[in-house]
């Protein structure tokens, strides 16, 4: 069952390859490859399609996604354009990868055979990888894991603890205290101009009464100051007093009709 299959260097397969056992690709495959065993793509191997297997060892070119249930290893000279995922992902110096790399996965298969290797930290994101770095793969793997737990642990407690108590305690008292004193002065000022308006209306009917009316005006503002809050609030809701004497509805029409 675990017989190794080989696609020779001079062979081109255009179609899907799937099944059990391991597969070694030295030629070209244009189609998806899905096997239960390991997949080795030689330096001259070319695959255009998704490749999935237990452990993928890539030395050739792949245009498609790589999925290894145990590991995905890009050897020097490999060129991969596609997403890479597996419990362990290794990208050696000299390998080229372009795509999304995800190192979590299903370690079930790997854990059953060898728990230790599965627990090993996986290589960092593919973007960083592009071959030029002369660093060997092992240090990269060791450096990658520690930053992850630190980042997650710090931000969570800080954000939740600080903002909640501060925000609730401060704004409430301030908002209530400020608005109360502020509005009254504005309203008092508005009332002052109002009283003079009624005075001019009164004089026209009785010209003789103008003198007595003048003294009446000053007391009016004093009353407004004492009774500021209650009477003033209802007044602003009403429309401003008409400058022209009110004419009851229909009077104009009656006049026009009468003239006509």
């Amino acid at each position, binding site marked *: 069952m*675990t*017989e190794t299959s080989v696609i020779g260097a*001079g*062979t081109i*397969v255009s*179609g899907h*390859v799937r*099944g059990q056992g391991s597969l070694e690709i030295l*030629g070209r495959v244009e189609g998806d490859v899905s096997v239960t065993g390991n997949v080795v793509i030689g330096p001259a191997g070319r695959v255009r399609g998704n490749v999935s297997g237990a452990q993928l060892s890539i030395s050739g070119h792949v245009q498609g996604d790589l999925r290894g249930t145990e590991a995905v290893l890009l050897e020097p000279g490999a060129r991969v354009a596609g997403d890479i995922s597996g419990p362990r992902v290794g990208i050696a110096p000299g390998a080229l990868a372009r795509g999304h790399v995800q190192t979590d996965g299903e370690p079930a298969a790997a854990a059953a055979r060898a728990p230790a290797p599965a627990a090993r930290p996986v290589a960092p994101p593919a973007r960083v990888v592009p071959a030029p770095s002369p660093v060997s793969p092992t240090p990269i793997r060791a450096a990658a894991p520690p930053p992850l737990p630190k980042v997650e642990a710090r931000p969570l407690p800080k954000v939740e603890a600080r903002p909640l108590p501060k925000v609730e305690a401060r704004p409430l008292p301030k908002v209530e205290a400020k608005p109360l004193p502020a509005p009254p002065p504005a309203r008092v000022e508005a009332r002052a101009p109002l009283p003079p308006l009624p005075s001019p209306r009164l004089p026209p009917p009785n010209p003789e009464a103008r003198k007595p009316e003048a003294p009446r005006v000053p007391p009016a503002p004093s009353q407004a100051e004492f009774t500021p809050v209650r009477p003033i609030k209802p007044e602003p809701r009403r429309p401003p007093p008409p400058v022209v004497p009110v004419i009851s509805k229909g009077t104009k029409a009656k006049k026009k009709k009468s003239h006509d």
Partner: protein
Amino acid sequence: MAGTVIGEGLTIEGDISGDEEIVIHGNLRGRLTTTDAVTVGGTAVVGADITGASLSVAGQVTGDVTASERVDIQAGGKLVGDIKAARFTIADGASFKGNVDMEV
């Protein structure tokens, strides 16, 4: 050494073409074209037209065969399809159904 080997548990759906020897122990559906020898193992199930220099069948093959040199059906082998080859042998215990053209 065989250039291409299709293992017992492997299935290929599609065309295979090349210039080297091909050995099949698994399943193939599609077409098989090569300039070298083709060997169909005892566990193989092939549903494909086969073109090659020579063909040796120990498993099951369904499809037309064109060989520039020879076609041999081994004991236990089964071939259904037309054969066009200069030399053609059927071993005792093999089964075959189809037309034969040896005028190449």
